[in-house]
């Protein structure tokens, strides 16, 4: 193998690669999708009830309710806006406070509140919002809490908020998109256009071609992974170790991509395989999002050994000793896929 020739081929991929849609997509898609996922799942499956508020009198109620972790508050400028927001489900409950609301409450005068309820809101959300409102009103009225509430927290697993449950999915996307798709599509395109034949008949070996394509996948995957993790404020913990894990993950993704590209003859089949493999690759991340699914199932999928070390470092500040077993398996998986790609390279004189 000539590193010089690998460099020549890598240079060609780097310079002319951006003309390929997949190259651009692999950079942009993981970023976009990670933002979308956080938005969709973080908001939908999050536990907060939502209150919309129009405050015509500068009441203390707004500040009191906002202090509550169970309720998120959105302020609107008019009754119509509030009604529209409630109708389309932007909030569970919409409340309009009349002028001098606080004064009326303190004077124990009968006060009218206009409330809109989104028909599809859950009972519990209505109850929580109502409780938050009445609690705030009691505070405005000067009523002391009639009971003393003591929290007794029993042992158990640490809860995983939705932002953290999404992290595996977010970590995997650059690996799948950039790491494997770019080399795979590049190789299959070269086969379709017969340019791989031309390369194979030059001093360059198929192994060198595969390595160049794989390197591009690694580079794109690593860059995108770092960007995505940073955007999601997850590039924390031992940075050097995390970088090392991301690098190994990128190598794994790229080796899968090269293997796919080496084995598959046309884009239609590649597209079909990607459709099907997507589930296999994303399975550990999907399992993680739904704790009711037995989590050991995730270990059956190879990408588990990429995301688990990342999560351990990022969320639990793990060091090398904690992630060593998974890294060992990952190294093994990389070795197997690289060996398979090497075998295809030696057998692939008939590209």
């Amino acid at each position, binding site marked *: 193998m000539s590193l*010089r*020739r690998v460099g*020549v*081929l890598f240079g*060609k991929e780097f310079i*002319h690669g951006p*003309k*390929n849609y997949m190259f651009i997509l692999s950079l942009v898609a993981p970023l976009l999708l990670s933002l979308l996922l956080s938005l969709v799942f973080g908001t939908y499956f999050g536990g907060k009830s939502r209150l919309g508020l129009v405050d015509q009198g500068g009441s203390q109620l707004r500040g009191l309710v906002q202090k509550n972790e169970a309720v998120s508050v959105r302020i609107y400028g008019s009754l119509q806006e509030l009604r529209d927001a409630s109708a389309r489900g932007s909030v569970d409950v919409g409340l309009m406070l009349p002028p001098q609301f606080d004064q009326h409450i303190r004077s124990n005068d009968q006060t009218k509140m206009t409330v809109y309820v989104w028909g599809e809101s859950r009972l519990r959300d209505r109850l929580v919002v109502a409780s938050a409102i009445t609690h705030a009103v009691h505070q405005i009225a000067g009523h002391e809490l009639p009971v003393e509430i003591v929290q007794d927290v029993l042992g158990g697993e640490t809860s995983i908020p939705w932002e953290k449950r999404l992290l595996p999915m977010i970590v995997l996307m650059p690996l799948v998109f950039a790491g494997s798709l770019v080399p795979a599509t590049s190789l299959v395109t070269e086969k379709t*256009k*017969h*340019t791989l*034949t*031309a*390369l*194979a*008949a*030059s*001093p*360059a*070996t198929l192994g060198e071609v595969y390595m160049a394509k794989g390197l591009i996948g690694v580079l794109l995957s690593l860059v995108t992974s770092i960007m995505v993790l940073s955007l999601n404020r997850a590039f924390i913990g031992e940075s050097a170790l995390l970088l090392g894990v991301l690098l190994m993950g990128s190598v794994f993704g790229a080796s899968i991509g090269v293997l796919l590209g080496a084995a598959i003859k046309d884009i239609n089949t590649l597209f079909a395989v990607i459709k099907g493999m997507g589930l296999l690759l994303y399975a550990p991340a999907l399992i993680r999002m739904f704790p009711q699914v037995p989590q050991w199932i995730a270990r059956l999928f190879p990408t588990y050994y990429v995301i688990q070390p990342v999560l351990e470092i990022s969320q639990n500040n793990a060091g090398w000793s904690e992630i060593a077993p998974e890294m060992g398996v990952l190294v093994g998986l990389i070795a197997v896929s690289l060996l398979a790609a090497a075998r295809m390279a030696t057998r692939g*004189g*008939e590209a």
Partner: protein
Amino acid sequence: MAPEAIVAQDLTYNYGNLVAVDHVSFSVADNQIIGFLGPNGAGKSTVVKMLSGQLRPKAGKATVLGVDVARWPKRVQAQAGICFEITNLYEEMTAVDNLNLFARLFSVNGFDAEALLNRVGLGGRGHDLVSRYSKGMKQRLMVARALLNRPKILFLDEPTNGLDPVSAEAIRNIILEERERGATIFLTTHDMMEADKLSDRVAFINQGRIAAIDTPLALKQKYGKRSLKAQVMGSDGRLKSREVALDEASTPEAVSELFSKEQVVTLHSEEATLEDIFIRITGRGLV
């Protein structure tokens, strides 16, 4: 005796149950042009692929420039130039970029892409995207790519197929120039005139086997028959063709009969073409 650039012994290749090349043996002397002539599907491209290291023979052996090509394909490819049957250029790159890429892969020092493009008649178009090239231009670029490492042996797989006469003639001139430079050229074609014009030796290949191999002249002498071809006026007022073999004992009588019994409109002698010989030997045409 001139050293042999190519020696093939019992070369065999099959695609599944289809035997594409069936125990083919031949040799090519250094600095010679050999034309492999045969119809589509005869096995010409498969032979080229085996000799150029793209395919490993299922049986038999081939040495190119003294190297066992099955064992050391890259050593052969480093000294070879290949013009493929199918156009396989990077269309999203310019011609210069295409050539520079391969020049770097071949470690050609001081490579001048523009000069080579001028040589093949693409001067001034080097910085255009290949996707904008015509078929003839792409083929010239393919030939240029095959020449960039000043190869000792050139494999040209149907280099003028589908080209206009001007482009085809340009490529033939390049082939002759390369021979002058000292390269050995392995040319496949189903254009018998091209084979006749360019080749020092011609091999007829049909259904994976070599039916005959010799110089064009020798083949014509051995298998070809001269004849007189005449057009005569028929009783219905239409021209009809008549042919009289020229090297037979009965030739004088046949010629006399032709002139006495027919109204001869045109008359010319013709020697056998390679296609005629091919048909005679194999029983089928070149297309």
